[in-house]
């Protein structure tokens, strides 16, 4: 009897050991592991909020650089209105929240073993992986435009040395010079920022080099906030800025670096300063992990941002294809918070609640003239869709006082989001 009871206990012990074996995190008395790749608005937010939602989760944030350089307000840097130093942020406060930092490039993801390999040789096992790699330039997307070409005709669409290169070129240009920007037909990071950049460069030309001119060659016939931008351009930059739409022959089919020439279907445009907004795709690690589809972006489901292609991997920020949500810093931050809560729920074996998300994009058409676009999103048809009746652009007939206020709120937004993500 005693003996048999003992053996029964042993059997139970063995059974529970077997049951626990597939859950090594629990067996070893530590929390589940989440690896976040990408230290921008999406990745850094997700890492911090995971710790906030459940401090037991072991969170590692992988970032190529120990310093983050923010894209929002980098158009101000291009136009000489802001110092580059104001765009740099460190991860000290992220680490203080209990997030482990790994400053190395992520090279590969073994989706079977659930492990990330870093450039420094380290392997990071995960229970769930969050990818927030942002964008890569698609160097095959525009004929004549490769990495070498970008040293002459900067894109400045990833903030950093490219931003400063474009600024130096504008500063070196003679008064009377011609600046040409090109805008692609395909999905890009923060599309409205193309027109903000054009506006702030036009402001620079108007105030510093008034005989100069800026041309936008656009592969599209319309864009977000077009009426607000065009009204402001007519009022503020009537001789400095010209927008050539697709139907007016704006589609750039190739560039010629030696002469800084944009080749369209009908004409050639030579520039003194050339800014190419090139075609883009999700960051390299997304392609390597198999979460990007043929469009180059990563389809995700709208509740936890889990990849539609690879289970256990979530994609947030510019790399994600969510449906209606644009690729923008506010959206990235909003997605990251929803994703962090959902991932924590999934790790507990729970079911994430249906979210609602907001996006707000502010643009400057001049330093004291702001406009905005807002949207509210909910899941629908397997993606995120606009909540009807909500959102929209700043009023086209808003008085100057509203424009001034929106410029102030735009600055307030940047300070707030930086406080939340890096402060």
């Amino acid at each position, binding site marked *: 009897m005693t003996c048999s009871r003992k053996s029964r206990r042993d059997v139970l012990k063995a059974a529970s050991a077997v049951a626990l074996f597939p859950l090594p995190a629990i067996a070893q008395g530590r929390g589940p592991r989440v690896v976040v790749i990408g230290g921008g608005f999406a990745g850094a937010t997700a890492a911090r909020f995971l710790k906030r939602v459940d401090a037991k989760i072991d969170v590692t944030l992988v970032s190529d650089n120990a310093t983050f350089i923010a894209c929002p307000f980098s158009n101000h840097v291009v136009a000489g209105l802001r110092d580059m130093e104001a765009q740099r942020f460190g991860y000290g406060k992220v680490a203080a929240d209990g997030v482990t930092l790994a400053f190395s490039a992520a090279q590969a993801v073994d989706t079977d073993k659930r492990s990330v390999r870093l450039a420094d040789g380290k392997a990071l096992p995960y229970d769930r992986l969050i990818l927030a790699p942002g964008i890569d330039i698609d160097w095959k997307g525009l004929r004549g435009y490769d990495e070498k070409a970008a040293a002459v005709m900067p894109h400045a669409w990833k903030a950093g040395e490219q931003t400063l290169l474009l600024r130096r070129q504008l500063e070196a240009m003679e008064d009377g010079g011609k600046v040409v920007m090109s805008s692609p037909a395909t999905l890009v990071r923060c599309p409205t920022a193309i027109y903000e950049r054009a506006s702030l460069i036009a402001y620079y030309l108007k105030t510093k080099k008034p005989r100069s001119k800026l041309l936008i060659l656009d592969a599209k016939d319309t864009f977000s906030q077009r009426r607000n931008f065009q009204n402001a351009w007519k009022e503020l930059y009537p001789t400095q800025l010209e927008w050539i739409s697709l139907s007016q022959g704006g589609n750039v089919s190739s560039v010629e670096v030696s002469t800084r020439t944009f080749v369209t279907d009908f004409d050639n445009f030579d520039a003194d300063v050339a800014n190419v907004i090139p075609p883009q795709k999700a960051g390299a690690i997304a392609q390597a992990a198999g979460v990007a589809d043929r469009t180059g972006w990563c389809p995700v489901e709208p509740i936890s941002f889990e990849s539609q292609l690879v289970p256990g991997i979530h994609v947030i920020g510019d790399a994600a294809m969510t449906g209606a949500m644009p690729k923008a810093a506010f959206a990235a931050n909003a997605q990251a918070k929803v994703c962090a809560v959902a991932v924590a729920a999934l790790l507990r074996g729970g079911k994430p609640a249906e979210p*609602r998300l*907001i996006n707000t994009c502010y643009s400057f058409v001049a330093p004291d003239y702001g406009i905005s676009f807002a949207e509210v999103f909910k899941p629908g048809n397997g993606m995120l869709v606009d909540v009807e*009746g909500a959102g*929209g652009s700043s009023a086209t007939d808003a008085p100057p006082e509203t424009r001034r206020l929106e410029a102030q*709120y735009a600055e307030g*937004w940047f300070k*707030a989001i930086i406080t*939340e993500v890096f402060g």
Partner: protein
Amino acid sequence: MKATRVSAGVAAVLLMIGVARGAEAPAGASSCTGCHSAPSGVSAMRRLSGLPQAEIADKMIAFKSSAATATIMDRIAKGFSDEEIRAIAAWYAAQKP
């Protein structure tokens, strides 16, 4: 009567704690701090955490009906029902200022 009042008070306190400790914020709440997170003086937008529920909810509902003028919050408030707004406001009211 007295007992009812006491238990109502206890219930209110428990509700407060429930909101404060409940990790799950109502749908939509987490987006707000994209603008409303910095301490006063740092940003033009007010930090919501710790503000009275009625202050947040009344303002949002007024923005929604355009009874109060806004630059952008009218467009955002229209994405939420009054009930959803009150739930979000209650959650922020229960957060540490």
